[in-house]
């Protein structure tokens, strides 16, 4: 499979006509879509995550050291590396889930727009509303129906003044699940297949309209067909969201990511357009990893 090139696609025509509510959004999306990835400042739409000197600790263990990188708006950035390299830790620092682990803490700056999410005045709950997360194992809430699962985000986050039914339908469409479940919205969420459950979790995440979606090895528990569907979905989702995906599967990174960051033993070794990482990386460690010399 060819690594992606830096140009991104513009949305197909039939989708554009459905954006009746926000034509200006489409124009903005087009503008971002045609911007190149690294080095250029995206327009000030607030979907970029800038990480500066991030450190993460488990107790005394300095697990992640001095990470500085930019997750570009409306792009898919993959984080790869061998087990224990810290990529999942970095991911969990981006929505401040890392600190939920006892004795774990993070230092540094993570800027969403002009706000540092680690600033003491910032409400961590609001951070998580803006930066959503999809987990490795699909985990719909077992006591809730499909509809309630998608609506759960709205209810839990206390979002008011929203037409729930409409939002649920939008989210299920956005996750590519609507056609399959529209006739059984009341049936239990855990009754779906693995791949459907994961798409349900994605629908749940986008129902609160985050700015960024973090994905922690979202396909590792799924079969290849379900994985393919999710990867196609990611391709669509990046029109509206910034996506950061941690993956063990280098081929997957090659398929879905615009840029890829390689981590090793808690350090960021290299961050470059995906094509470059896999064909001619700057760092020899990156080259050794992607060519399978260790892993």
């Amino acid at each position: 499979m060819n690594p992606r090139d830096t140009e991104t696609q513009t949305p197909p025509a039939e989708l554009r006509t459905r954006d009746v509510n926000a034509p200006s959004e489409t124009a903005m999306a087009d503008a971002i879509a045609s911007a190149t990835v690294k080095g250029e400042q995206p327009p000030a739409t607030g979907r970029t995550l800038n990480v500066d000197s991030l450190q993460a600790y488990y107790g005394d263990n300095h697990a992640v050291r001095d990470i500085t990188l930019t997750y570009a708006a409306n792009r898919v950035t993959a984080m790869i590396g061998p087990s224990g390299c810290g990529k999942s830790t970095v991911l969990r620092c981006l929505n401040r889930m890392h600190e939920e682990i006892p004795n774990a803490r993070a230092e540094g700056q993570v800027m969403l727009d002009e706000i540092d999410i680690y600033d003491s005045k910032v409400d961590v709950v609001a951070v998580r509303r803006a930066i959503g997360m999809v987990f490795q194992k699909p985990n719909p809430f077992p006591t809730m129906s499909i509809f309630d699962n998608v609506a759960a985000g709205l209810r839990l986050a206390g979002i008011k003044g929203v037409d729930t039914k409409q939002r649920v339908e939008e989210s299920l469409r956005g996750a590519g699940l609507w056609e399959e479940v529209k006739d059984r919205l009341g049936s239990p969420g855990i009754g779906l297949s693995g791949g459907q459950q994961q798409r349900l979790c994605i629908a749940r995440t986008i129902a609160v309209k985050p700015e960024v979606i973090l994905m922690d090895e979202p396909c590792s528990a799924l079969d290849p067909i379900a994985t393919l569907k999710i990867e196609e979905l990611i391709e669509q989702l990046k029109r509206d969201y910034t996506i950061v995906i941690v993956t063990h599967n280098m081929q997957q990174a090659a398929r879905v990511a615009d840029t890829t960051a390689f981590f090793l033993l808690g350090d960021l070794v290299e961050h470059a357009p995906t094509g470059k990482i896999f064909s001619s990386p700057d760092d020899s460690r990156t080259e050794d990893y992607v060519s399978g010399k260790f892993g």
Partner: protein
Amino acid sequence: MAATSLKTGTDRPSRMLGRSSASRSLDPLMQWILTGMAAFILLLIAFFFVRLFVEAKPAFDEFGYFGFTFGSDWNVAKNIYGALPLLTGTLITSAIALVIGVPVAVAVAVYVTELCPQRLRQPLASLVELLAAVPSVVYGLWGVYVLIPKMRPVETWLSDTFSFLPLVGAPVAGPNLFIGGLILSIMIVPIVSAISREVILTVPPDHKEASLALGATRWEMIKMAVLPYARSGIAGASMLGLGRAIGETIAVTLVIGNSPNMPKDIFAQGYSLAAVIANEFNEAASDPLHRAALIAAGLVLFVLTLFVNGMARNYVHRAERGQRQVPKGMAA
């Protein structure tokens, strides 16, 4: 697979970052309330112990700690209170309960986990657990009207046959220490067998398969692989049963005879720490020293159960922890 653009300009989450949400203030409240509940338990137990001690103190002041706990005279009429007859009664009935109950309970545990046909496992286990559902007053009722009369001939035979043993040989009273021990043994079977069963289930299958592969018979496998591994856990289970036996009140007081003399024979009437409290508290209401003595007996009982249960827990925990240690490099 179609995807629509969901973004509108109005409810962008990043705009909300600076705001603090009012509902968040409930978080610290919840934490405080729950932590308070937990702390309350600690205070309660401490208070428990202190109050018991304070109320029992008059008895200890009168007879001394040692004098009360090991005094051999419990005489309500003369207002002399020494707990030794009660303590001895408690120990004798508990010992009988262990001697009879533990082998039965362990046998049940071994049978249900190792020898029983698969279909019968759950039903058998549930039946044994039903023994625990019977309230102690019903055990007492049954003991008085069924066990005592029915066991009389057996007890007489035992008493005559084993009269060379100390504490055996006297004519059989109706309610007596032996019946007390017997009822207790029935009552502790469910708890000892349930915990023994759990412990036996933690024996790694490879141990068992290794001995079977060597050509051992089923019983030999149990002897070689299961029982040694489960030994300390079963000991712990027995001690928990002991703790239960020590504290049982109602069933015992109905069948033990409630006689405060130093027990000289297991087939004679006796008393126990728990039974005396239930039996005499009514008449003690007006007599402060008697009441303090009963409360002191309760304190002795409490300390005894604390001690036994503490040791039991140690054994069971050690057994569980030891079994979870897997040698390095081996998958669990």
